[in-house]
């Protein structure tokens, strides 16, 4: 059949688009990946922002990438740098707290500030370790179709239930209780020390329009920590920044037989006779396709790329209420030297304490207060930030002896009630430096260059609707089967032949490649089904 020779077009060469391309190619398809920018990776991209200084521009670190994704794509040529420190919390009073990847070392550090918490840390880590396979399976699951819960679907859900069951009654009940909880409550259940609780709370609200007291943020913590069996998520990035991962995935996709083209912008997804027939490029050129897989965000896909005439009113209503306004700004600093954080010992060689995420937030309540501003669409007066200094482990990103610091600042709502982000870019930089100065006095004098990405910039430069790095808020009503919208939580779009594979699908949290892999499995199954019916 002619149709069988037609290609699958993938819109967007982000990590998920490339993973999907790779897996489709391995199954004999010849996917064509079209990327509007000049670089692969989408949010996983390394750029020079100041002469001699390079940074992972949007996603600072990997999710980490799931082992199954690395295996299935036969990923090669990535040198992963896993940071020995997971979180460093420099305190205003000078005593810092480093939460290490190594269990013994971490417990010893916690012991110093809160002996009870050292025991709790071990217990929680053990529990999460025992549950890690379930959480990995959760990320790797194609969610059940809640709109059409057929017997077959029921059986599939039953299978995930069995996996849950295999945790044993105690951990099973824990998982079910923890997932819908607010991160603040989860943090209180795990620890009594405020700094430790703050580290958990920050994880729960990362890139979210939610506060630590919002129900469901516990689940966001578990999506990021559960698969790795540690209450503090690992911090992993490739040498050369996140762009190196994208390039390696690009190579893997091409090796597998996919075609990947950059600087080709898809303007429209074409629908003929109620079925996707191809794409039209910005230049007007048309490419026929058997299927179009969108790695772009769901709002962009359904409200800009597809003509609304082809969508049912219920679908349009649902996507119009999809919450996709981002809440964070990103600041990259080129530094002449390593900043000296209070609570970090030693001179000379960069301390391994600074190799992970550096969290600047006073308390769980301080994060909640920062969130309050976002509720009223205001830039927080007292935001919190999470920084990484990638050059601690990867000096190649800056000239010798110099460093790059990337800060995630929350909350910076895309949809400001008053004013616009163009006018507030300087405020973002000022707020970032002010916060950093409280923990690393003198850091401002080290700044040789900077780059600010407001949510508006993220939308403009990275084609992220609302500047949302996760392609839409990960709240309970936009998760799992409900992601992106009810009825289309299984990577199959609302028009036959249209598929989703981006972060706007389950699980869509961090650069794990899970969405791309799950999507590829769903697409392959559906293409096979269509083929057999033809």
């Amino acid at each position, binding site marked *: 059949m002619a149709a069988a020779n037609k290609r699958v077009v993938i819109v967007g060469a982000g990590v998920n688009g490339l993973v999907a391309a790779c897996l489709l190619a391995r199954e004999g398809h010849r996917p064509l990946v079209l990327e509007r920018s000049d670089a692969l990776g989408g949010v996983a991209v390394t750029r020079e922002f100041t002469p001699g200084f390079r940074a992972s521009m949007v996603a600072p670190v990997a999710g980490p990438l799931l082992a199954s994704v690395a295996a299935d794509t036969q990923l090669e040529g990535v040198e992963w740098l896993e940071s020995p420190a997971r979180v460093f919390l420099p305190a205003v009073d000078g005593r810092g707290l480093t939460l290490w990847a190594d269990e013994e070392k971490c417990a010893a550090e916690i012991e110093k500030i809160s002996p009870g918490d050292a025991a709790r840390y071990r217990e929680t880590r053990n529990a999460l370790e025992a549950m890690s396979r379930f959480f990995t399976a959760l990320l790797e699951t194609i969610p059940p179709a*809640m*709109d*059409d*819960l*057929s017997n077959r679907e*029921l059986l599939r859900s039953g299978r995930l*239930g069995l996996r*849950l*069951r295999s945790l044993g*009654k*105690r951990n*099973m*009940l824990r998982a*079910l*209780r*923890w997932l*819908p*909880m607010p991160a603040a*409550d989860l943090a209180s*259940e795990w620890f009594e020390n405020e700094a430790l609780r703050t580290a958990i709370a920050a994880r729960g609200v990362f890139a979210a329009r*939610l506060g630590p*007291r*919002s*129900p*469901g943020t516990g689940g966001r913590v578990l999506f990021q920590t559960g698969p790795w069996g540690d209450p503090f998520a690992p911090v992993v990035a490739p040498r050369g920044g996140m762009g190196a991962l994208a390039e390696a995935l690009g190579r893997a996709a091409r090796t597998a037989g996919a075609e990947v083209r950059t600087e080709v912008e898809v303007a429209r997804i074409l629908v003929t006779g109620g079925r996707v027939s191809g794409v039209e490029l910005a230049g007007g050129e048309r490419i026929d396709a058997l299927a179009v897989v969108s790695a772009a965000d769901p709002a962009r896909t359904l409200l800009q790329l597809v003509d609304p005439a082809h969508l049912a009113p*219920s679908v349009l*209503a*649902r996507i119009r*209420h999809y*919450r996709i306004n981002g809440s964070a700004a990103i600041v990259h600093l080129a530094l002449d030297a390593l900043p000296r954080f209070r609570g970090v010992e030693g001179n000379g060689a960069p301390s391994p304490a600074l190799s992970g995420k550096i969290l600047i937030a006073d308390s769980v*309540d301080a994060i*909640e*207060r920062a969130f*309050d501003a976002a*509720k*009223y669409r205001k830039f927080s007066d007292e935001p919190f930030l999470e920084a990484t200094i990638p050059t601690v482990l990867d000096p190649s990103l800056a000239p010798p002896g110099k460093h790059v610091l990337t800060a995630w600042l929350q909350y910076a709502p895309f949809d400001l009630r008053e004013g616009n982000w163009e006018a507030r870019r300087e405020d973002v930089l000022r707020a970032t430096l002010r916060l950093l100065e409280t923990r690393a006095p003198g850091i401002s004098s080290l700044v040789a260059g900077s780059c600010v990405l407001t949510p508006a910039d993220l939308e403009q430069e990275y084609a992220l609707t609302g500047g949302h790095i996760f392609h839409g808020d990960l*709240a*309970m*009503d936009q*998760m799992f*089967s*409900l992601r992106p919208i*009810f*009825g289309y939580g299984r990577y199959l779009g609302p028009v036959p032949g249209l598929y989703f594979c981006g972060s706007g699908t389950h699980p869509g949290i961090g650069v794990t490649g899970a969405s791309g892999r799950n999507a590829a499995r769903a697409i392959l199954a559906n293409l096979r089904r269509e083929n057999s019916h033809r």
Partner: protein
Amino acid sequence: MATTYDVVVIGGGHNGLVHAGYLARAGRKVLVLESRPVLGGAAVTEEIIPGFRFSVFSYVVSLLRPEIIRDLDLVRHGLEILPLDGTFTPLEGNYLWRVDDHTRTRREIARFSAADAEAYEDFGRAMVRVCRFVRPFLGAAAPDPTSFSLGDLERLLWLARRYQALDSEDKFQLALLSTSSAVDFLDRWFETDPLKATMSASGIIGTFLGVRSPGTAYVLLHHYMGEIDGTFRAWGFSRDGTGGLSRAIAFGAQAAGAEIRTEARVAKILVRDGRAEGVALESGEEIRASAVSSSLDPRQTFLRLMDSGDLPAEFAENIRRYKFRGSSGKVNLALDALPEFTCLPGVGSHLRGAISISPSVEYMERAYDDAKYGRFSRQPYVDVVIPTLTDPQLAPPGKHVMSCFVQYAPYQLAQGSWDARREEFGDAVINAIARFAPNLPNIILGRQVLTPLDIERMTGLSEGNIFQGELSPEQLFFQRPVGGWAKYRTPVRDLFLCGSATHPGGGIMGAPGRLAALEILKKSPGKGA
């Protein structure tokens, strides 16, 4: 030798009384022990100010299960529900008024938005369909997906079958109601801000969450259920206040043979060899029973009335972790005249329904922000009713009682104590209403301000939580109050729970009391020892 009972029930709240009624009907020898002189728990009517009778705590009835009214023959025992029609939201220079009359409500909403007037009817129909699906949940114990027992699997499968039969759009609404915030849910239907604000209030009642917090759409559904359910179409007042309702249940239970003692405060649940065998009163008296049922909340039941040694450590830990977080207060006012609302002056029927101080979504959300950091709301959400307009006997002729339910009043204050700040709180509530009805301060003859601490002291509800614990997702269904222990049984043999801390939760519903009784009867169908 003291009498031996089949079941001794701790607490004469509405659930305890319903529970006793069902057990007595089945021939069990039952004794209810109530610590206060008056029955009803949080559903009591008392003369707080001479001549004025108040539904002191809970004040409206909507969720009471029709089967309970039938089974305990409550109407014959004096239950009378008077209509409470409509919700009136005063605004600056305007008002939003919804009544039971569709055409009128439609016209009122259309003053704000024609689209909303249209959507309001569709919304009502959609909610009815979802409630019809959810209703059986209230009539049966929650199936436990973690148990894998045949009964649970069967029940889950039955639910799945019913779910399959739902229309796709209804499935969608159900999914949203289970996961969304009240405002995000309502945003999909309406554009009128005060309409969304007022409707979203049902999502936060008794809850330490804001109208924009995920999970509050479920609480909204929980409240909506009563408006739909069979016997009573709308919210209503019980004649002579909620105490009238408690009295009817008590009469029903007594008629079935239950014994009830007031001013009998339980000091301890007697446990031997992992089995409950009775209770000891504060007076020292011991009462033996084949089973003990507590309608008290889990903290009271397990942590106050029992030795920690009687409980498995993990269970006790889970009980300590169970969230109460009382967030509501109550102000009861004796009035010399009726309040006059600037936006709609005069004594109209708008005063006969609920009056909701919820002018905007932002107002509601900011009220919550105060509570999060341990302050009572400076501009609180208030649900006001004036029951004397429907039931004049509650006050001397021409005078009125006014009941003001308030959120937020966090149990834990960041500064000061509730005892020191009670009146300041009362003033904030009166000011919030006076903003729309300026004559209010001048017509107050007397007032009773109830903080969550007062609610705890007077009713025994821990932290003053009116639902005996938050209706948050991790404390619902098979996880209420604790995962694996949602079927009214406890790790202590022959000790049962029958209060709002069990499925399906709070409100004057009676379902927990009934379901717990059925559970006891199921286990030992024959007449007790």
